[in-house]
């Protein structure tokens, strides 16, 4: 009996020491994994009835009335045309005889969940959209404009082939990669524009609340369902197009699609959603 008690005390002490050490090291520097765990934990605490997996559905995880309308639209989602166009474009052979499947792992099928990735040779974050254009340029084809139907449709198709795949963004052991992540994180939490809002003001602090008649979604899961067909615009748009819109709406000067700022932001945001699954393309208002 005495031995057992002694073991118990030993274990408890060890546990205390372990916790203390962890706490000390955490306060010194929280890396991306700690950020992600804290980010996901925040939403789970804030919305205890929302399963973690449901965050990929954006506002529909938080708004029952909106969800029903979305379910109706998903009966026959309008992005099906973009996926079909994307598949046709994806199958095209370049003038030099190559195709997109030569540029990507797994021939480009079911790879979306690992984008954006940090390209150590280039020293920058490469998004899926950028990778599509890099592929074109490497094979002597002119790049598509980032808001073109062609590029968005290709992105929609590639997202579609990754439906259900677990988001798995890697930050390689490269100080530049960590710097890109930190830059995206800083952008996310920085106030901007005449309205002086940070992304986090709406999508972390005020997630689930309203800004006029808009019900604010949580940032967790945001990149999972892009590109999205927007009912308002009657077409599919990219994630960076939405960044552009959001930043314009807080009356700040928006950056261009695929600018380094947005790529780093996407890198940070998608990493935060690691563990959730891809469900793009999506349908939203």
């Amino acid at each position, binding site marked *: 009996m005495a031995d057992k008690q002694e073991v118990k005390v030993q274990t408890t002490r060890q546990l205390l020491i372990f916790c203390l050490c962890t706490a000390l090291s955490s306060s010194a520097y929280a890396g991306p994994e700690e950020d992600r765990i804290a980010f996901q934990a925040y939403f789970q605490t804030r919305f205890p009835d929302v399963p973690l997996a449901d965050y990929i559905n954006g506002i529909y995880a938080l708004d029952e009335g909106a969800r029903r309308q979305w379910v109706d639209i998903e009966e*026959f989602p*309008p992005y099906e*045309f973009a996926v079909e166009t994307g598949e046709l474009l994806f199958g095209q052979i370049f003038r030099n005889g190559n195709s997109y499947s030569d540029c990507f792992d797994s021939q480009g099928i079911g790879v979306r969940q690992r984008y954006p990735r940090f390209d150590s040779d280039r020293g920058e974050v490469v998004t899926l959209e950028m990778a599509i254009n890099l592929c074109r340029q490497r094979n002597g084809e002119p790049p598509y404009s980032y808001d073109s139907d062609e590029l968005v449709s290709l992105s929609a198709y590639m997202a579609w082939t990754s439906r259900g795949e677990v988001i798995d963004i890697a930050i390689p052991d490269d100080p530049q990669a960590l710097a890109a992540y930190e830059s995206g994180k800083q952008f996310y939490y920085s106030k901007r524009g005449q309205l002086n809002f940070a992304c986090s003001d709406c999508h972390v602090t005020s997630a689930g609340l309203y800004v006029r008649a808009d019900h604010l979604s949580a940032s967790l899961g945001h990149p999972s369902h892009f590109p999205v067909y927007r009912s308002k615009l009657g077409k599919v748009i990219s994630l960076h197009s939405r960044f552009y819109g959001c930043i314009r709406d807080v009356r700040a000067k928006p950056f261009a699609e695929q600018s380094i700022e947005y790529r780093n932001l996407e890198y940070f945001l998608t990493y935060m959603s690691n563990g959730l699954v891809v469900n793009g393309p999506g349908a939203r208002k």
Partner: protein
Amino acid sequence: MASKIKVKVKLKGDIAEVKSLMLHPMETGARKDPDTGSTIPMHHITQLTFANNGEPVMVINCSTAVSRDPYFSFSFNGAKPGDTLTVNWVDNKGDSDSTEVVLK
């Protein structure tokens, strides 16, 4: 060329559940082009006809208030595998499009 009318049919006994989605701008004629400021002319599907083996099973008369990229669903009786369901629309500019699907 990718199709502009999509049709999905589920046969349950002799009832065919039809869902259809089609590409069309359905312009109301009240919208202004954000770049040029000029009004975008009205351009919308006026009538959509579904026929099974040539017999009309649904005719839908549309105004500009039908959403862009229209969606419709309905069910009809007396369907069987091998039947041909045709869908065709005409719009206010006189354009038209059609497609057909064999029920299975």
